[in-house]
């Protein structure tokens, strides 16, 4: 009898495990919101690529290809048991730093920067991948059972963990992306439950470091961008120009927008090289206030689902992962759209999912895939 019972349990496990119960936890909403944002981004690329939309190598076809890659990455990451990630967190950390060093060594970029690495015909911005890897590494660090969350040492340790990546990105130089690392750090520490006074102290130290940063770290063009944010009319032909152009576009949108493809003639030519970072300006012009509301709604819903995944994960690692991804998406949303709407200085931060940048999209797919993995694979125990 005993033997029989064991047999039957095994058979039951074998039949029951793979499909239904596990994948029932898969958050279809999260996936749909993200896919909708990607679709909007592709639509913007499609309607604004001009006559050469379907030619291989156009913004749209490249976006389509990256979206395909993103789906594959997402599926693999979701199927993967995220808890296994902790086994090779340190090799991942080393890989992360190595990719950033490679970027500095052989990278290309606009105006003497080193931001992309060419892999075959594709540009890849490793700093995007680095953000997700950093989320994983930080989550692993905070989830260590012996970590005391009410200790400032833990906070300092987390800073030390993130500092090399942020510094390497700052050297490219890419101030915006290195600030994203800061947002990930703060958001993750906060949601993981690190003592508020230590977070306050960290904030104070960061404020104290600002003058040093201004004097010794920021490049002239970065200072120029911040200054021209404070007074865009001071240099309307330089960095203030992008700002003014994007605001003109947003103003032109009105409630309903001018309609797809109806952006003012030549506007896409006018918005500068990083025009993909200004995609929201074109979107607001063509789809109007309604279109903007839809995008904000999708982001709000997406963030809600990400936080839900973090909450439901029921283990510190999953919680910190969700917190990191939510912080990253929220920060990028605020900074990118804030820039277009003239309430934030110009930084080269993409709008998550919508901006047609391959590395950004694939990295986000990886992050969301891992979140789904948290949904699917979290331990079936309660707190």
């Amino acid at each position, binding site marked *: 009898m005993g033997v029989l019972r064991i047999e039957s349990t095994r058979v039951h496990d074998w039949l029951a495990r793979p499909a239904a119960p596990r994948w029932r936890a898969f958050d279809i909403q999260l996936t749909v919101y993200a896919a909708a944002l990607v679709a909007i981004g592709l639509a913007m690329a499609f309607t604004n690529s001009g006559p050469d939309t379907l030619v291989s190598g156009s913004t749209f076809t490249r976006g389509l290809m990256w979206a395909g890659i993103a789906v594959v990455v997402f599926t693999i990451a979701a199927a993967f*048991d995220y808890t*296994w990630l*902790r086994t090779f967190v340190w090799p991942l950390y080393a890989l992360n730093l190595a990719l950033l060093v490679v970027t500095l060594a052989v990278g290309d970029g606009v105006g003497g920067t080193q931001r992309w690495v060419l892999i075959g015909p594709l540009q890849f911005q490793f700093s995007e991948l680095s953000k997700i890897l950093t989320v994983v590494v930080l989550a692993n660090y905070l989830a260590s*059972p012996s970590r005391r969350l009410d200790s400032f040492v833990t906070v300092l340790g987390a800073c030390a963990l993130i500092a090399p990546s942020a510094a390497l990105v700052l050297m490219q130089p890419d101030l915006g992306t290195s600030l994203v690392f800061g947002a990930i750090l703060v958001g993750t520490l906060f949601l993981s439950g690190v003592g508020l006074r230590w977070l306050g102290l960290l904030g104070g130290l960061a404020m104290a470091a600002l003058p040093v940063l201004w004097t010794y770290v920021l490049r002239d063009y970065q200072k120029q961008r911040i200054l021209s944010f404070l007074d865009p009319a001071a240099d309307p032909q330089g960095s203030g120009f992008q700002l003014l152009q994007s605001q003109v576009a947003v*103003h032109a949108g009105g409630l309903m927008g001018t309609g797809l493809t109806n952006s003012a003639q030549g506007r896409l*030519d006018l918005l500068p090289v990083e025009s993909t970072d200004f995609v929201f300006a074109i979107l607001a012009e063509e789809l109007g206030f309604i279109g903007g509301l839809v995008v904000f709604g999708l982001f709000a819903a997406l963030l809600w689902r990400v936080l839900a995944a973090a909450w439901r994960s*029921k283990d510190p690692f999953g919680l910190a992962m969700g*917190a990191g991804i939510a912080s990253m998406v*929220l920060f990028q949303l605020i900074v990118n759209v*804030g820039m277009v709407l003239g309430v934030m200085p110009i930084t080269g931060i993409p709008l998550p999912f919508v901006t047609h940048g391959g590395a950004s999209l694939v990295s986000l797919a990886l992050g969301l895939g891992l979140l789904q993995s948290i949904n699917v694979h979290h331990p079936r125990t309660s707190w």
Partner: protein
Amino acid sequence: MSALVGGPRQRSWPLRHPLDLGPGVTARRPSASRFLAFGLVIAIAVSVLVGRLAWMQLLDGGRSQAAARGTIVALEAIRSSRGLIYDRAGRVLVANVPTYTVRIRPADLPLSLREPVVMRLSGLLGLTTGEVNRRIDASAGSRFDLVRIASDVPEATARLITEERSVLPGVEVVVESHRDYLAGELFAQVLGYTSAIAPAELARLKAAGYLPDDVIGRAGVEATYERDLRGVYGQQRVERDASGRRIQILGTVADALPGNSIQLTIDTRQQGLALKALRWGMAEAGLRRGVVIVMNPQTGEVLALVSLPTYNNNEFARGISPERYRELLADPGQPLLNHAISEHFPPGSTYKLVTGTGGLADGEISERTRLITRGYLSIGSFRYPEWNGRGWGPLDIYGGFGHSSDTFFYQVAGMLGIDRLAYWARQYGFGSPTEIDLPAEASGIVPDNQWKLDTLGELIYPGEVYHAGIGQGYDAVTPIQLITAYAALANGGTVFQPQVVREVIAPDGTIVRPFEPRVRHVMDVDPDVLRVMREAARTVVTIRHTYNLVDLPIKVAGKSGTAEFGQRDAQGRLPFHSWFVGFVPQDAANGSFRNADSPLMVLAFAYDSRTVGNAATEIVKYYLQLHFGIDHDYRIPDLLERGNFYGGN
């Protein structure tokens, strides 16, 4: 799959059960208040963005006001007019001529329209589409900066382009001025020219207010006095539409300050005489390169400076074609180089001034010391010949300098040694730039033991001391250095910084910088030593070493020199280059060289002058004739015939 998906039983490692954290460690639960706070942050952030979007798109006038808001108020530079240049007598040497320039702002030229616009524009301007495209793409600045496509466009074409502006987006016609050098080749080496700023320069000068399509002084005083001539650009507020096209000028923020004008120390007439004398000598002797410099030894003012062959700086001012520029660069006569200051040559016997001064000043010889001159001196098996092959027997410094005896100065150089010889050369200003207010000056070479150690890794040989003493071997001087050194002899020991600009004058006519002689160095020497050397220089003329120069109705002292260097001919002989530096006393007809009062010094340098006589001396003689209006012609054209004059003088 099982490994990937895993099951509860495998999960004891690596992740511990959240409730099974080990002894003494409490479980961590997610904090609901923190999640609420984070959610609140999201809500606030999204609300702010929605609010801002609503304000911009719905409340702030919406689409109706968008057109009005589509304009941009920008600051734009107002170009200042470049200062003028006058000659010593106040004659205008350069004028600013209005001209039409066609430019493109690449940001305003949509990619889809680029091809037809480039086609139309190239047709109007008579350029190939390739050239227009190349100029657009060569722009160093941002896509919002104007790129110069064509300068000096005829007015009719400019009108046509302006009328077609609706089909030529991004194309602008701008009135600006270019330099018109009224004297052309006569002053090209002194005035230089202006041309478009290069990308590398722009990076350096952007902070100083230079614009991507700006011009900058390139050579001559246009370069050295760039800051004075340029003035200060002003600023105006202009309103532009969304694509950057100017709608109206709203007001002036700062007026442009016109550049200062400059007055040269050079007189057009004297410059013309110098050119005439040099052209004559070069034609007569079949020379390809030559220099004449006229200076006031009492102040260092350059009164004339001619370097041939030269170029016409108007070619550059109007935008020289790359082919023509390459042609000028490839010319073996190097017309773009100012041979008077940018190239150094062995000074030959003119350098005996240094050796003689050193010998006297160091007490190695006195005014009365006689040294035996003969056919040659020997060091070991090496022979150091006298230029006439015989010598003159015992000679004092007057005879030695007068005959330009090599064996006399070998001996004096040997007494001094290389380092004292170099010391006296530097006292005369050799070995370092004269700091004349013209760009690209060469510094020359004064060899000593340290120099040779640094350059060639060994000490000077005794024979090289002999060569150095007569201006051969490693010695190298620029013509401007040589005349500055002789000016110090003529004025009693002051080495002046030569100047070609006399005054800097503000646009309102006030003098910003009056003329002041600039003393580089006062020689540490007994004035009597220089008196002896001046009288020795007079002896050069009086003993007819310079043929009939003594017959002129003015008193001339001076020194000739011949140097051998360059490429050997079929017989293994080196080309000869001749020098002459001459000066006259204050009272040209009756004055004496005892006094250090000479107001006029003339130097000629004739490159590759294999002539019977010293070509440079003939050129100086002719200049003096012209300068003093001497009717009788003392020139001896026979001396300028190509011949086999192989003696050092």
